[in-house]
């Protein structure tokens, strides 16, 4: 688009736009193809996964199935069953509790528990995914905010204090190789036993998970200014605080946004996992757990997709903020 704006002739703009569209299409088609292949494989995989339940259902409805009786089919290979009963496979995509729900079943469930319930005026009832997504999202955002703020503070301290740098930094890096998520159940239960429950324990786990990526990224970012730039500020006799505000912090923005993207995804995972050990009643993690207890596979899959959409939206929002901020600062790539 930029080259189109530079040329004066009116036709060039159109040609530039055409080229832009062509480039966008070139980028989109392969992605659509891959997504299409995945959906096709998904539909095909429903056949062997759901064939036994589907045949049982067909037999109860009066169809003749080879071999007869669910008992005889229990240990049979799904491929053999599919070959022997080609006429009775329609049910694999419409089971109530399939081993693998078909994509459209998940889509319908997602629609019914979000838009459908909103249209019925029950957008925030207990069955609505909006309720559960909000419970998880609020913990994620609170934790992400806490973790990011503390992370930036610690990074500023590390950059300005050599003793702190040498003491804390190796541990901050090492802690990234540790499965911190394993602490989640204990934090929840311990905080519960001292009377803190609800949003805060989940937010603390989210904060913990987003904390370290932000520290490591921000230390890198605050050290990004070149020696010449730091020297220039010294010739201005700038104080350390001025150097921080006018040079180090602006220079660290690209690093900050990169670690924010990692951090927000980690925060969401933290909030979801934090809902598992207490048997929480609300939240996307609670939906996953309840679905796995009661064999409600469609519910699990729709909670999973809701979580994925939420993660994509959060990362997308940060990417948008990144483009706006870095664009305004003249740092856009």
């Amino acid at each position, binding site marked *: 688009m930029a080259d189109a704006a530079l040329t004066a002739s009116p036709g060039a703009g159109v040609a530039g736009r055409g080229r832009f569209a062509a480039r966008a299409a070139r980028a989109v088609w392969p992605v659509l193809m891959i997504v299409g292949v995945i959906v096709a494989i998904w539909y095909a995989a429903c056949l062997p996964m759901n064939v036994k339940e589907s045949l049982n259902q067909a037999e109860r409805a009066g169809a003749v199935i080879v071999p007869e009786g669910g008992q005889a089919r229990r240990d049979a290979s799904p491929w053999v069953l599919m070959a022997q009963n080609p006429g009775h496979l329609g049910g694999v995509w419409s089971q109530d509790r399939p081993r693998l729900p078909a994509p459209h079943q998940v889509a319908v469930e997602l629609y019914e528990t979000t838009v459908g319930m909103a249209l019925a005026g029950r957008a925030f009832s207990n069955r609505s995914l909006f309720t559960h997504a909000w419970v998880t999202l609020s913990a994620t955002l609170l934790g992400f905010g806490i973790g990011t703020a503390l992370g930036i503070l610690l990074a500023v301290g590390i950059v300005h204090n050599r003793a702190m740098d040498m003491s804390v930094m190796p*541990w901050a890096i090492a802690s990234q190789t540790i*499965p911190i998520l394993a602490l989640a159940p204990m934090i929840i239960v*311990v905080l519960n036993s*001292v009377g803190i429950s609800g949003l805060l324990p989940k937010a603390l786990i989210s904060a913990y998970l987003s904390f370290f990526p932000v520290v490591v990224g921000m230390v890198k970012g605050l050290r990004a200014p070149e020696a010449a730039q730091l020297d220039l500020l010294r010739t201005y006799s700038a104080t350390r605080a001025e150097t921080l505000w006018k040079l180090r912090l602006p220079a660290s923005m690209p690093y900050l946004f990169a670690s924010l993207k990692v951090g927000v995804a980690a925060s969401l995972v933290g909030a979801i996992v934090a809902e*598992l050990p207490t048997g929480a009643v609300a939240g996307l993690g609670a939906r996953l757990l309840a679905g796995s207890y009661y064999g409600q596979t469609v519910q699990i899959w729709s909670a*999973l997709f809701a979580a994925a959409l939420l993660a994509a939206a959060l990362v997308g929002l940060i990417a948008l903020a990144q483009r706006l901020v870095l664009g305004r600062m003249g740092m856009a790539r």
Partner: protein
Amino acid sequence: MALIAGSLVFWAVAWWLNVRLAASRWAGTAAGRLAVPAIFGLTLLVLWEGLVRGLQVPSVILPPPSAIAARFAVSTDILWADFVQTFVKGALTGYAIGAVAAFAVALAADRWEVLRRGMLPVGSFMAALPIVGTAPILVMWFGFDWQSKAAVVVVMVFFPILVNTVEGLRAADAMQRDLMITYAASPVQTLLKLRLPAAMPFVFNGLKISTTLALIGAIVAEFFGSPTLGMGFRISTEVGRLALDMVWAEIVVAALAGSAFYGAVALIERRVTFWHPSQRGRG
């Protein structure tokens, strides 16, 4: 009271020592770089021990490090069994399968341009998603034993390794490729002698990120159902019984296993990519 005062004094002394060390000429040496964080870690342990004992924090809230160490020492056989179940069977198996699969798909994506263009955005998208959420589904499909945990790990490590390998296979620059063309090298030769070695720093980046993911996947998957052993199983049941010293002992095992796993992959990386600027001058 003496315990609290003592640990606070220890803190002050250690702080002073670290400030002095960081300012001294020892700071640049290997000994200094090791001593300062070691003193800091020791200070944390002493503070923890002193404050927990001094303030008489009940052990169902936070056990002191000495109690955790004692628990660790007397239950090494349980910890070892859990470690084998979760780490060796679940995490390592899944990690190996996931890495090989991701590598194979990356090679295919490198061979067919359309596949790469489609795979890269989808892969980066998937890598940012909360994939641990697939755990209940995979536990339902593959049963309670380690196979389902390995399956979760496969899905978790697949996308980071895939994205990094595909990126890495494009790392060789045009000049180097041209050189291979002037040698009349076949595509396979170019792949083996130039592009795969050039991709290795990226591949190892993905492999290193995935070490932690593998362990997380194996542990979290056990929260959705497992046989009566495994690190995730032990953590969730001992938390329920408020035996927090055992929980902390499992967390120590997880931390050691995670660091050792990462360290091992980093060591292999140093051997394989000894030529890369980031590895030079590291003895």
